[in-house]
């Protein structure tokens, strides 16, 4: 399976816009050169018209190379899509960059470029004083700007791996000095430098330049790392054309801290102390640095608002403070609705937002309903969060101004939450598309440990918050008058494991719910409806006439206050919710529970 199969299928079906949407999903960093080259061929089949209609910014880019550039244009065009750019690329004859720049009648100027990329490498740095060398390049930039009024991009010099002078190598010192002088001259808009010395260090200088391909075909950057260079160049281009993301929207639980605040409580969250807790703090430090240079931060979390805010007030380890966030959305609505509210509040388009969440299902929903938002696939291990986010180059800027640094404060000052009542996306069809499968059965011996853990830890979706020991759970499972149900859920994105547990008993004509709880990770997935259907069926099979349950309020379970009400139960004076089984109607459920009924109705 290649990384671009979905785009290929769409193209084969004649669906250009669909293929474009697939290609624009943030490119998998791990996919290799050949896969990306294949993806680039697909990108070339999408018309310029389709790209513009999809909201991409058309840019005419000229590449002036001192080495072979043949593989670069398609890869750059591919990465341009994810960066919001429809690149039309002119490739100058290899090695002729000086003539192209200096000759007013050259093909370069006939192309009328909006951006020029000087694709040079360390071998192009001439001997002599570093100041004179920097001046020489700055002179070329000026000619380009004067004649073509274009943005000028240039590769900073990639200091090579080999150093005849060892740690005292004069060539290394000189290239570093030239790079620093180029950066000084570029500041203020004269040019945009692509820091190839940094990038080659990140990928490893021994991989960056492969001498075999240099001797064979004058390839300055090895093909295997060219996709990484293309991503970096596309990031700088997108900054030049105003397509960088401006706001990063963050989940809270297991994104900013370890654990689930609503269930574990603020005091128990992993922040520092453990190695994993340290990783969350390190991620927060990175985010704080983003904020301090003008990237807006926002929260979009499924939580009670008071719970979501509590760690910011009570956990002194938190690096990020509430004042670092320009918008704070914590409720039980779907996140697509939350992101639209955040965009509206900050007066930004959805295409200015990026979204980071540890839960694959949430990311998939956002991709589906807000395709303009850049979705960050946070990896399993929080220690890798920083690097994953950084490698996507979402927030590149052409300069950092004082105004950027003050922007977050500006938004925070006018902050007050707006209510989130935008139109709901078609959730039913989204849920069906997740291909959810549930296994719902009476407690088995192998379930006892996990059920006990859920019973003692679940605070939010828990109607009675009754706690039982492992021995008690085991006894319940064996008790003839007790009815138990454990639910496991998986979908095409992953396996959620055992996420819901129910205990009920028949008493006379009544089927009474003793315990009903569910992990909030699967909220909004129809699991509660599936449980309801199973309860109604079980009660009927037991010959009961009514199904009943209680809601016992705690500080944390406000979420399920009205659960019975929304399912057609009525409350009596004692607070017992009852449903006459003769009137009970089964719910439509988007989960295949093994009975072969992907959606069942009464």
């Amino acid at each position, binding site marked *: 399976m*290649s990384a671009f199969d979905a785009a290929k299928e769409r193209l084969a079906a004649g669906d250009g816009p669909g293929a474009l949407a697939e290609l624009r999903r943030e490119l998998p960093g791990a996919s*290799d*050169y*050949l*896969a990306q*080259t*294949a993806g680039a*061929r697909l990108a070339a089949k999408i018309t310029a018209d389709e790209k513009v209609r999809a909201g991409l910014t058309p840019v005419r880019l000229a590449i002036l190379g001192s080495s072979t550039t*043949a*593989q670069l244009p398609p890869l750059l065009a591919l990465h341009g899509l994810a960066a919001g750019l429809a690149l039309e690329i002119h490739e100058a004859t290899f090695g002729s960059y000086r003539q192209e720049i200096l000759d007013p009648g050259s093909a370069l100027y006939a192309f009328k470029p909006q951006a020029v990329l000087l694709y040079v490498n360390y071998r192009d740095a001439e001997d002599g004083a570093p100041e004179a060398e920097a001046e020489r390049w700055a002179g070329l930039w000026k000619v380009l700007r004067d004649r073509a009024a274009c943005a000028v991009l240039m590769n900073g010099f990639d200091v090579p791996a080999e150093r005849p002078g060892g740690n005292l190598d004069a060539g290394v010192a000189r290239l570093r000095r030239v790079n620093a002088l180029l950066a000084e001259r570029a500041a203020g808009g004269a040019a945009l430098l692509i820091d190839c010395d940094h990038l080659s260090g990140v990928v490893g200088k021994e991989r960056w330049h492969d*001498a*075999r*391909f240099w*001797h*064979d*075909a004058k*390839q300055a950057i090895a*093909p*295997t790392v060219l996709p990484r260079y293309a991503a970096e160049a596309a990031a700088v281009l997108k900054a030049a054309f105003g397509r960088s993301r401006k706001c990063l929207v963050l989940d809270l639980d297991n994104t900013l801290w370890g654990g689930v605040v609503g269930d574990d409580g603020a005091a128990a969250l992993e922040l520092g102390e453990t190695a994993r807790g340290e990783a969350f703090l390190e991620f927060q430090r990175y985010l704080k640095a983003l904020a301090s240079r003008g990237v807006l931060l926002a929260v979009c979390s499924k939580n009670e608002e008071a719970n979501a805010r509590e760690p910011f007030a009570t956990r002194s380890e938190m690096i990020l403070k509430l004042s670092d966030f320009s918008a704070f959305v914590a409720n039980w609505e779907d996140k697509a609705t939350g992101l639209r509210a955040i965009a509206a509040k900050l007066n930004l388009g959805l295409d200015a937002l990026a979204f980071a969440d540890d839960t694959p299902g949430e990311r998939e929903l956002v991709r589906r309903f807000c395709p303009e938002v850049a979705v960050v696939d946070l990896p399993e291990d929080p220690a890798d969060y920083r690097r994953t986010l950084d490698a996507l180059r979402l927030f590149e800027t052409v300069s950092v101004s004082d105004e950027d640094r003050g922007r977050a404060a500006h938004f925070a000052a006018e902050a007050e939450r707006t209510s989130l009542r935008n139109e709901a996306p078609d959730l039913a069809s989204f849920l069906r598309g997740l291909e959810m499968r549930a296994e719902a059965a009476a407690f088995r011996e192998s379930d006892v440990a996990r059920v006990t853990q859920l019973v003692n830890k679940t605070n939010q979706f828990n109607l009675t918050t009754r706690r039982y020991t492992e021995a008690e759970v085991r006894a319940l499972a064996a008790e003839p008058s007790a009815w138990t149900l454990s639910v496991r859920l998986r979908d095409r994105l992953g396996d959620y494991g055992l996420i819901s547990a129910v205990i009920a008993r028949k008493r006379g004509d009544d089927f009474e719910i003793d315990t009903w709880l569910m992990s909030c990770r699967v909220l909004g997935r129809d699991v509660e409806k599936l449980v309801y259907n199973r309860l109604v069926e079980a009660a009927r099979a037991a010959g009961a006439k009514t199904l009943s349950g209680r809601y016992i309020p705690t500080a944390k379970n406000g979420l399920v206050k009205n659960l019975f009400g929304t399912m057609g139960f009525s409350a009596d004076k004692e607070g017992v919710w009852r449903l006459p089984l003769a009137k009970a109607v089964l719910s439509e459920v988007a989960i295949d529970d093994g009975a072969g009924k992907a959606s069942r109705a009464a």
Partner: protein
Amino acid sequence: MMEPEKLHAQLERIFQSVFDRQDLAIEDALTAADIDGWDSLAQINLVVGAEDAFKVRFATAEIKALKNVGEFKRLIAAKLG
């Protein structure tokens, strides 16, 4: 040591990817002259693809010398020992 059939099939997938032809069937006698687009750029793509797939490394002189499928297979098999 890799089975010759497995090596052949894996190399065929690389050729299919490089030349964007899912129906391409390779045979030992196939040369650069037989395939449209087998130029110096495609040659590099084949080398990079084979190095990645088989975890081998071709020497500078070998890169140019690989003129047909049979040589590709012999060299890869020799490197895999």
